[in-house]
């Protein structure tokens, strides 16, 4: 297989270890005086966006940041709980850049680019240094050094964390760096603004059309380069762990303007989420993967067991992950854990009213911690109750906020009864196709963080999203953007009365007018929920040809119905949440189809993409490396018309193998 001629990943020459170092020393630079006259637009203010905007402004570029929330600090990176990986080897447990690289490639089921992943592993260490220097309060040991914990898919402790709020602390660090630049006038912030269109001039991205979400006014903004740091598209499923506002709009508009979409079908379903409680549910809440450090996952050995979990004796419990994967146990990667839970529930071993939940139980470790504490406190022959009390205190310190959140949402106390959990859509590995420079197929248009497809292959390991977002923003784009901008120093600022801006704005205005004028009978949520159900049932944790074909035709007719019967109340020239949602859902209705097309095209199972037709006898994912060791980069031709371009994945440093966690 050869890569399509239309895409060039621009992977530097040299051995894997040298690529990035060499590249950094040879990439074109922009001199400080020229940086001052180059303008960069950053859309999105999460980890990737904030860190990129701050770093680029520090270097001297003129930066504009857009976010749809009321403040950059609200971007959904804030909700990441568990931690961030880095190959520091502080625990002296044999970690190295190579191991992090290897774990990430393997965790991604051999569908990620070697060079990108190795670069990610290389810069991971600098991220921790940078964050600590900013004042991010990571968890520490009594000696004052940083603390680590384990995460799924690895056998070393390389995850840095700040209680269950690591994403929050990292984002606030990047946000504070961004605010510093805003205070100095180097960055202009446009909060409550949504990007509605990319503006291209002579084939290059030259700006965006944004909608002021308070006044409804459309605005034109020029930039020598446009960075999309707009996160993932998990909300296509309606129910996901994403924030309500997370959307694909920016990426989708870029896609329709020539940016190829990479691996859209790779969706991560997170194994430990709070189960759905009813039709009113608007979002799903994650219980951090870090809980799998201390929680054991089980179901009853009896089908349709209606007993309360505490009434099921030990010998009648099936710790199915420990049984199936003794080497990694409860810490297998997310895709593996999710599928195993689904398999148990589908087979009738689930619990709760809907039977769609498994138990996550902390009893064993509460007891273990209790015993350690008792020894520490010189308590001789403590009784069981004392041990449990001491153990609960330890669990509380480690996961207190998560336990409180669980109790608040479900009304059940996880200190007393095991949590009930079920997989939920969490992250999308797919995204805009980018080359080694993080540039899409549209020159001058870049994609960072979850918005691009690059580093996680078909499945992302826990605590790697934060790593990638910050790597892209702090340590990759500041160098790689020079490769493009060094050629742009002669480009003067293009006035926004340029024809291209006028046309793009008119297109957006037309789109909005269309939505407002349908005046149908159904709300936006009605369509979004229906789309979500189609996607979850047919393009979720398990997919098959028949289902995907059905989904594609269903989505098409749903889209038609949407455009003839959606109701957007209010006015376009005002704060109008329904209009915002309608516009986002209209894009999801197109993306959903592409996801199914991609899933249908990939006749293998890998990572987050599980085709029921392709599995081993034990029910594990069955890859087809001969035919499918490529990145699927889809080109938008017309509505429902996408052309596939393949980027061959070459593994020169890793022996590609059947993934095993047994």
């Amino acid at each position, binding site marked *: 297989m050869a890569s399509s001629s239309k895409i060039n990943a621009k992977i530097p020459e040299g051995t894997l270890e040298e690529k990035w170092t060499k590249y950094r020393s040879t990439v074109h630079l922009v001199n400080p005086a020229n940086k001052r006259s180059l303008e960069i637009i950053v859309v999105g203010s999460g980890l990737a966006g904030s*860190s990129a905007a701050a770093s680029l402004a*520090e270097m001297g570029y003129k930066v504009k940041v857009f976010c749809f*929330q*009321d*403040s950059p*600090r*609200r971007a*959904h990176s*804030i*909700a990441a709980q568990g931690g961030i990986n880095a190959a520091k080897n502080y625990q002296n447990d044999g970690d190295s850049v190579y191991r992090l690289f290897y774990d990430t490639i393997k965790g991604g089921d051999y569908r990620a680019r070697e060079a990108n992943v190795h670069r990610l592993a290389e810069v991971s260490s*600098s991220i*921790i*240094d*940078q964050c*600590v*220097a*900013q*004042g991010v*309060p*990571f*968890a*520490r040991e009594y000696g*004052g050094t*940083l603390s680590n914990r384990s995460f799924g898919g690895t056998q070393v402790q390389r995850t840095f964390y*700040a209680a269950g*709020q690591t994403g*929050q*602390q990292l984002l*606030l660090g990047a*946000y*504070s760096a961004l*605010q*510093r630049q*805003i*205070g100095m006038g180097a960055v202009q*912030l446009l909060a409550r603004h949504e990007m509605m269109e990319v503006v291209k001039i002579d084939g290059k991205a030259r700006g965006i059309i944004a909608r002021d979400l*308070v006044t409804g006014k459309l605005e034109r903004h020029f930039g020598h380069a446009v960075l999309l740091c707009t996160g993932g598209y998990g909300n296509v499923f309606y129910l996901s*762990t994403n*924030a*309500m506002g997370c959307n694909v709009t920016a990426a989708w508009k870029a896609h329709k303007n020539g940016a190829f979409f990479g691996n859209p079908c790779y969706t991560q379903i997170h194994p430990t989420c709070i189960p759905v*409680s*009813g039709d*009113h*549910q*608007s*979002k799903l809440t994650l219980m951090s993967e870090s809980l799998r450090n201390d929680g054991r996952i089980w179901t009853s050995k009896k089908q349709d067991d209606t007993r309360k979990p505490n009434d099921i004796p030990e010998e009648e419990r099936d710790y199915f992950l420990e049984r199936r994967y003794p080497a990694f146990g409860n810490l297998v990667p997310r895709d593996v854990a999710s599928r195993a839970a689904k398999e148990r529930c589908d087979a009738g071993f689930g619990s709760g*009213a809907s039977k769609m939940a498994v138990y996550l139980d902390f009893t064993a470790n509460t007891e273990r911690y209790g015993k350690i504490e008792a020894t520490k406190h010189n308590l001789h022959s403590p009784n069981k109750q004392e041990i449990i009390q001491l153990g609960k205190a330890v669990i509380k310190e480690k996961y207190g906020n998560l336990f*409180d*959140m669980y109790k*608040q*949402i479900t*009304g059940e106390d996880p200190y007393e009864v095991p949590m009930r959990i079920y997989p939920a859509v969490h992250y999308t590995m797919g995204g805009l196709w980018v080359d080694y420079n993080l540039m899409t197929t549209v020159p001058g248009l870049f994609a960072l963080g979850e918005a691009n497809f690059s580093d996680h292959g078909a499945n992302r390991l826990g605590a790697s999203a934060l790593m990638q977002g910050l790597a892209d923003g*702090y*340590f990759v784009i500041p160098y790689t953007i020079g490769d493009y901008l060094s050629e742009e120093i002669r480009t003067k600022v293009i006035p926004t009365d340029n024809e291209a801006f006028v046309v793009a704005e008119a297109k957006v205005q037309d789109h909005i007018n269309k939505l407002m004028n349908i005046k149908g009978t159904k709300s936006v949520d009605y369509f979004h929920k229906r789309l979500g159900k189609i996607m979850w049932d047919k393009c979720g944790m398990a997919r098959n040809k028949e289902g995907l074909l059905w989904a594609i035709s269903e989505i098409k007719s749903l889209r038609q119905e949407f455009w003839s019967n959606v*109701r957007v*109340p*209010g006015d376009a020239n*005002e*704060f109008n949440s*329904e209009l915002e949602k309608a516009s986002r859902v209209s894009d999801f209705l197109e993306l959903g189809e592409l996801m199914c097309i991609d899933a249908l095209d990939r006749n293998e199972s890998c990572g987050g993409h599980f085709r029921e037709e392709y599995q081993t006898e034990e029910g594990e994912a069955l890859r087809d490396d001969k035919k499918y060791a490529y990145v699927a980069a889809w080109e938008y031709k017309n509505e429902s018309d996408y052309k596939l371009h393949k980027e061959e994945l070459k593994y020169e440093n890793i022996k590609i193998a059947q993934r095993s966690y047994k």
Partner: protein
Amino acid sequence: MSQGNMNLTLKVWKQKNKNEKGRFETFDAKGISPDMSFLEMFDVVNEHLISSGKEPIAFDHDCREGICGMCSMYINGRPHGPKQGVTTCQLHMRSFKDGDTIVVEPWRSAAFPVIKDLAVDRSSFDRIMASGGFVSINTGNAKDANNILIPKYDADDAFNAAACIGCGACVAACKNSSAMLFVSAKVSQLALLPQGKIEKRDRVLNMVKQMDEEGFGNCTNTGACEAECPKSISLENIARMNREYLKASLT
């Protein structure tokens, strides 16, 4: 469980935009399940309003898991409603009784102008952060993370202060619309850490100056902010900020 059997009456502040005058309107919330979150209850009401041809109630929300700080309702006389330590999005309807009348208002502060209905503009918080809520270190200048040793207790205190989600409940709860808890949380976090100590003098002076210019009121130590803070940020932070400010002013 989707359809519940709670029926409630909502008295909600409606205001078209920043410039127009607002007023209270009454809405019925029918068939509410106790498992719904407060915002999901609003979703149900809005869905009903849309299908009957009316405009829905505008409110801010995003993550719906209590961490982004976007949701902001003043419910029955308290920011984020009757439960302590939770945001509106994590407040569940089981905290109310069938037949209740619930009064829902936007955050009230001169520094938080209403944009529409229950949504307010909190950009004043961003401007305070831009005036000094950071460590001045450019990307790439950091030394190895473990070269900075920080006592666990200081790190924990800094973390507890840094847990602030910037929702503005402290301002909403305070009878004086004071933002001291918010500002002091950031001042404290950075003053407690060696990385932040270098600029602590300028930081506290600049941040307090910006806070005053934004039109927030003064602290009278009623403690309402701490009691209503969804992340239980401690009043100790305000004392620390006062101390830092006094020190910075005297030297």
